[in-house]
């Protein structure tokens, strides 16, 4: 068993970066995720593992530092919260176009604009449908516990390098700020420069005479080549969709009414399931872990087993619910419930919404 600690989600994320053998973290402070860079600066991983930590002048600079270091074959990470993530979109689009691996976290707060520093899940569209410009996707993992804040950093780097893609850990103020017991995984040593050069032939590490030079770019002025590149990207996203779907079913075996949720909303909905069961309602929870790829097929298959209704629970005005509808349309009733703007819904409200909107008539 790994080391047991009581940690905030943000701290667990930071500690996991060090343990995952990350080479660098570039970030910029913003509530509610500043603990990530604060923890790293206090922990001095440059003394522990040689990991670089740098406070950039902006989120724009931070993501471009990630771009440069990732293009040079290193394991890099950044994190921010909603307004800062908006600023990173240009860089993320370049990372998608150049097919670079990286992990980043969004500890979501309420918007739009400067909004609030309180928890929210209103960045679902931005996270799963592209965010920046161009036809691209990124893998989105939604931790629902401090444990997963840690575990998904390790998993995130594995997926990022397997597919040369950005992996987003989509968290929120609840998961980032709360403390829970976390079992830390054993540290993975950082790769040596020689290992990196050997393992990632695409990385810009200096062109040896007589070898092919490496170019990290997302540009091609020849539209036919660009279309080809886009085909390649789409094929990659398809393969990811087939192989990297992740979700958890709680009390779904006999469930007639199922809550669909991710992150902190999933935890709240899980409590709503308990409250419902206590009232004799056969409720269950479909917890999304990967938001892209979205477990739509699995949802549809479950729906055919006698589900009467679904309630999408998210701290937004209704974003994820669109994907739920696309998945189970025609099979059962779908509704949405969510508080937003920084308000976190209560388990009682969530159950009440299921009773009113789905079971009701």
């Amino acid at each position, binding site marked *: 068993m790994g080391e047991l600690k*009581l940690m905030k989600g943000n701290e667990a994320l930071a500690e996991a970066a060090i343990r995952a053998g990350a080479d660098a973290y570039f970030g910029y402070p913003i509530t*509610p995720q500043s603990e990530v860079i604060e923890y790293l600066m206090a922990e001095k991983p440059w003394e522990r593992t040689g990991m670089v930590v740098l406070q950039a002048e902006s989120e724009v600079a931070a993501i471009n530092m990630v771009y440069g270091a990732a293009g040079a074959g290193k394991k890099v990470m950044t994190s921010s919260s909603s307004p800062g993530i908006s600023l990173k979109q240009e860089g993320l689009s370049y990372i998608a176009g150049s097919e670079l691996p990286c992990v980043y976290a969004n500890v979501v707060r309420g918007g739009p604009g400067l909004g609030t520093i309180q928890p929210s899940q209103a960045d679902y569209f931005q996270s799963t449908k592209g965010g920046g410009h161009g036809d691209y996707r990124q893998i989105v993992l939604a931790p629902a516990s401090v444990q997963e804040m840690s575990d998904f950093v390790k998993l995130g780097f594995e997926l990022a390098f397997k597919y040369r893609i950005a992996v987003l850990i989509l968290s929120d103020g*609840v998961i980032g700020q709360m*403390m*829970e*017991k976390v079992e830390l995984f054993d540290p993975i040593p950082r790769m040596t420069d020689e290992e990196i050069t050997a393992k990632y032939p695409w990385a810009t590490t200096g062109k040896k005479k007589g070898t092919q030079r490496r170019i990290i770019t997302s540009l091609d002025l020849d539209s036919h080549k660009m279309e080809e590149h886009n085909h390649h990207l789409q094929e990659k996203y398809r393969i990811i969709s087939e192989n990297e779907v992740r979700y958890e079913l709680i009390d779904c075996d006999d469930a007639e009414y199922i809550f669909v949720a991710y992150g902190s909303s999933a*935890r709240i909905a899980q409590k709503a399931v308990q409250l419902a069961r206590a009232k004799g309602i056969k409720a269950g929870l479909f917890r999304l872990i990967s938001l892209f790829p979205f477990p739509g097929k699995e949802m549809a298959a479950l729906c055919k087993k006698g589900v009467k209704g679904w309630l999408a629970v998210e701290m937004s005005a209704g974003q994820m619910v669109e994907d739920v509808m696309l998945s189970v349309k025609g099979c059962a009733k779908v509704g949405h419930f969510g508080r937003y703007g920084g308000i*976190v819904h209560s*388990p*009682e409200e969530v159950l009440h919404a299921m009773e009113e909107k789905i079971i009701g008539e």
Partner: protein
Amino acid sequence: MTEEMIIAGFGGQGVLSMGKILAYSGIMQDQEVSWMPSYGPEMRGGTANVVVIVSDERISSPVLTVFDTAIILNQQSMDKFEKSVKPGGVLIYDPNGITHHPERKDIIIYQIEGARLASEMGNAKIFNMVVLGAYLKVKPVVQVENVIKGLKKSLPERYHKLIPMNEDALNMGMNNVVKLN
């Protein structure tokens, strides 16, 4: 066993760290715990609160609106959270600075004069440990030995000399909590 509780008071009263010590003690006895603070500008000088859950099972929602126990340490928090105690639940409060005392009849109400006792002990900083002692007397969700074990694990070595004083404060709280109804 699942204990869902809130500790609410002013920033600076040690509300968040009291919750942390409780959570840490839960880990020491192999329980599941969660600690969800209020965060942001609300904390600065204003009110601070933290929801702590200690359970034998996997914890579902870390965010709650009703509680088995509320520990209330200022008037604003009393106004906000007296109504959030489940019927049959427990409310523990320090009367210091309280002008409107709790009135509910369907909950059990305790008083602990934490501020007075801590200053009598000559250290206002152990206030939160006095209150924690009172709570553990009423609700022994974690054993005192595990609180001490948790303190030892979570505090840097240089603070370990303060542990006996914290233990005294816990005992002071346990011995002085008063049931009002």
